[in-house]
């Protein structure tokens, strides 16, 4: 198995064909997909056709692009023209989008080969991929455990070597948490760095697309391809991070803050905390200056998130009404039809969040819930700004524990919500953050360390991530 960087180099130089790369990965999918269920839909034929197109370019002496022949798995909430896009929901079962998401266009234009659409918690709402209408994804490292979520399928696809790269979306930790659970690298970029056009919205002001990869440099390769301004997304920013690929590992003199509210609190497994401290020591050994730092308003992040995200979701998901696409359950009039369709089409977690969000926005409650949560968001942004006056990056666990067993948190929704406690603040602030695998717990499951950076701080974040990756994480 070679990295995405190596595969692209081999295909570009003609040393390997994109078709052979695709065939190899499709064979791996065929051998293990049955037990893992990373995909809702494998696009084998289209992948081979795309691979052949890449090979034809190479044969003509043209450069097929930086992702030449690299298989990429796409989360099934990214619109793909003519290819089923379901959000793992019955309400969109069978829908064929008439357009491609901007990121899908960019990946294929760069020579990437889309191998399929990966499973997720329905509409990206969940932290275990157990909320998929089409059945859960299993963690490739231990089939009795969840892969995390909501981008569980994309994390599992990379961990199971179905594809060296995949794309997920992160609203409150949906890339970083499954990356941590599956032992891969997962990146949530700065809000606005990657176009959301064609990403089926969960919570618009929090959603951001990002890469999964086996290595930090592979993640950089994919992020370089998908980032950049898009006129179709009003929240896409003009400034892009500088090229991140091979952008150094030097952390000497960097100031690293260990966030106490996300590390030294009840609920964080001592093994996880120990791993983060080892990562901090490894950075110190490479010349970084590490100190503990308090970001006080972080403790309110979870509550703010579970008001803002459902509120936006309740509005974003209104359009699934049985009129224009997707499922319809008939009714005597439009009201009955709408209500019956949505009742049959949405799963329990989606309904719960729609109810919560509708309530939080409804007359009389808006100010106490939604507006108050948006004020807390201001506090979080202020506290982070203060922290970044003293530190270049911050460090914390990605998740409180390693991957849990199926069913462990399905009874109590709030216990599931707690899995996002370390990742949510970055979404509320719009800042980049990423998870790097760093050692194993006593359950032999991977532990993730989270590096957080200020807006557009991807370059320094990746440098620190490389330094952590290089240190290896062995106890």
């Amino acid at each position, binding site marked *: 198995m070679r990295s995405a960087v190596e595969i692209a180099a081999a295909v570009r130089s003609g040393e390997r064909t994109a078709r052979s790369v695709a065939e190899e990965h499709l064979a791996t999918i065929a051998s293990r997909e049955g037990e893992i269920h990373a995909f809702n839909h494998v696009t084998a034929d289209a992948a081979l056709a795309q691979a052949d197109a890449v090979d034809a370019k190479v044969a003509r002496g043209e450069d097929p692009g930086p992702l030449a022949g690299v298989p990429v798995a796409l989360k099934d*909430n*990214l*619109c793909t023209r003519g290819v089923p*896009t379901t*959000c793992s929901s019955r309400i*969109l079962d069978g*829908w064929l*989008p*008439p*357009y491609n*998401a901007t990121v899908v266009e960019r990946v294929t234009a760069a020579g990437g080969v889309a191998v399929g659409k990966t499973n997720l918690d329905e509409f990206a709402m969940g932290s275990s991929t157990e909320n998929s209408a089409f059945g859960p994804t299993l963690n490739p490292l231990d089939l009795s455990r969840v892969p995390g979520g909501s981008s569980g399928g994309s994390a599992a696809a990379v961990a199971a070597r179905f594809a060296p790269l995949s794309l997920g979306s992160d609203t409150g930790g949906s890339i970083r948490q499954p990356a941590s659970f599956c032992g891969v690298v997962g990146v949530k970029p700065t809000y606005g760095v990657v176009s*959301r*056009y*064609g*990403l*089926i*919205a969960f*919570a*618009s*002001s929090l959603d951001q697309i990002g890469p999964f990869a086996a290595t930090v440099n592979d993640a950089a390769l994919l992020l370089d391809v998908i980032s950049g301004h898009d*006129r*179709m*997304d*009003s*929240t896409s920013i003009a400034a892009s991070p500088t090229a991140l690929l091979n952008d150094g590992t030097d952390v000497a003199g960097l100031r690293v803050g260990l966030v106490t509210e996300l590390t030294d609190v009840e609920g964080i497994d001592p093994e996880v905390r120990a791993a983060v401290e080892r990562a901090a020591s490894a950075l110190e050994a490479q010349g970084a200056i590490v100190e503990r730092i308090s970001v006080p308003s972080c403790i309110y992040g979870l509550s703010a998130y579970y008001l803002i995200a459902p*509120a*936006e979701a*309740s*509005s974003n998901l*209104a*359009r699934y*009404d049985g*009129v*224009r*696409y997707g499922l319809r359950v008939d009714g005597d009039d*439009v*009201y009955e039809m*709408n209500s019956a369709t949505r009742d049959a089409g949405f799963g329990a977690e989606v309904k719960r969040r729609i109810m919560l969000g*509708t309530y939080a*926005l*409804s*007359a009389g409650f*808006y100010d106490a819930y*939604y507006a108050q949560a948006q004020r807390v968001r201001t506090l979080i942004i202020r506290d982070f700004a203060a922290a970044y006056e003293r530190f270049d990056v911050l460090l914390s666990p990605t998740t409180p524990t390693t991957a849990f067993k199926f069913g462990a948190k399905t009874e109590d929704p709030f216990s599931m919500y707690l899995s996002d406690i370390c990742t949510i603040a970055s979404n509320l602030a719009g800042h980049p953050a990423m998870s790097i695998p760093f050692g194993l717990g006593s359950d032999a499951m991977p532990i993730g360390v989270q590096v957080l950076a200020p807006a557009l701080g991807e370059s320094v974040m990746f440098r620190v991530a490389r330094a952590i990756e290089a240190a290896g994480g062995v106890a």
Partner: protein
Amino acid sequence: MSSNEVQAEIQYETVIGLEVHVELATKTKLFCACANEFGSEPNTNICPVCLGLPGSLPVLNERVVDFALRIGEALNFTVPQRSIFHRKNYFYPDMPKDFQTSQYDEPICAEGWIEVDGERIGIERAHMEEDTGKSTHVGGGGRIHDADHSLVDYNRAGVPLMEIVSHPAMRSSEQARGYVSELRAVLLAIGVSDVKMEEGSMRVDANVSIRPVGTTQLGTKVEIKNMNSIRSLGRAIDYEVERQTIATNTGERIVQETRHWDESEGITHGMRSKEGSSDYRFFPEPDLAPVAPTDEMRAAARAAIPELPAALRERIVAEWQVAEHDARVLVANPALSDYAQESVAALASGSARDVVNWCTGELLAYGNETGSEPNSWALSPIALAELVGLVGDGAISRSQAKEVLAGCLAGEGAPSDVASARGLAQVSDEGALAAIIAGVLEANPDAVAEYRTGDEKAQKKKRGFLMGEAMKASKGQGNPALLNRLLDAGLA
């Protein structure tokens, strides 16, 4: 005497507020690049954005902001440093996202006014929002609630609207009509909309209530919709005031509701609605950035505003000496008033008043009949000036001029060419006219002698007589200016 009859003695005053929705005349929709076009085949101007497909995102049309700023300027609004969009959440099949992207507590235009018949009517706000699609109701005589099912066309979904909301500042249907026609004239003049009530590019909803004269508290208001002309707006308000007055006098309580105006029956009727269903859960639209009009944007909008109707009317009345009513008719049609102004500027002889008479008479009728715009007419403003000159010079009569006008509009050429081609031209051959003058002088030696010896008054009289003879001799077709000159020369 019953208590109802006692109540009937109370005098009520009417309180009216108007919500006007205007479709903006942009090339594309508010948030996508689909054509903003009336009358296309159903569902042909649609894309992922205006169809609300999963994953699509809005991007604001810059011309909409420019038009909104023009409205801000023309209607004396305050335009705040920042305005934002909100989502108004409610389910309706003609609304693709099941929320309307609109503005709420931070609109682009706040607190303006418009002068109507010498009185300022306060306008609370004007904001940008998207239009909905269009439903056709099948079965049940096309009425919404009796229909078997409905069919939805999303071509109109996402068309940019400005919603202009007046204060409850009007006291009669006449004033409401005046407000709408003045608003219409302003919006037309600044080029932001074609404001056609019949085609729905201007829609007026009226909030109507009554209260005892002398009280200041607002009564329970009823919203009336579905008026498709200024005339039916007036009728609907009058009907509603009468209905509310009778209801109140008979001890009935007015309920706050939306009522539909039925044009053919001439009545309003209530609509069934689900109790307590309107909780719109407004919240800031996270997919759009705030609008913060820069000095450059404001200056560009200001520069695009022509002389507004009120000022133009005043100037036309004063400078061209036309009647107030004619000025109003002319200015209500900006293309025609531009045409008239160009024509007046080109006048060599004849009066501006004649230009206006042609414009508000024959030409306005011609435009309405043919559905054509002045800039497409075969008669240019300069040609109209020529025609007015021909009449003013007496070269052709007014009734001949009508024939010439028709010929010009039919593309037969310039007025003088049309007149000569139809044998309506005056004789301008100097030799022929000189011969006529010579003949008249020879045939009337007494008059010539009296002219030469008489006082000023007698001279004028004799000269007029001789001129009349000359005109007669030319069969009414002699060029009067030329005849005058030749007569003066002969008498000298």
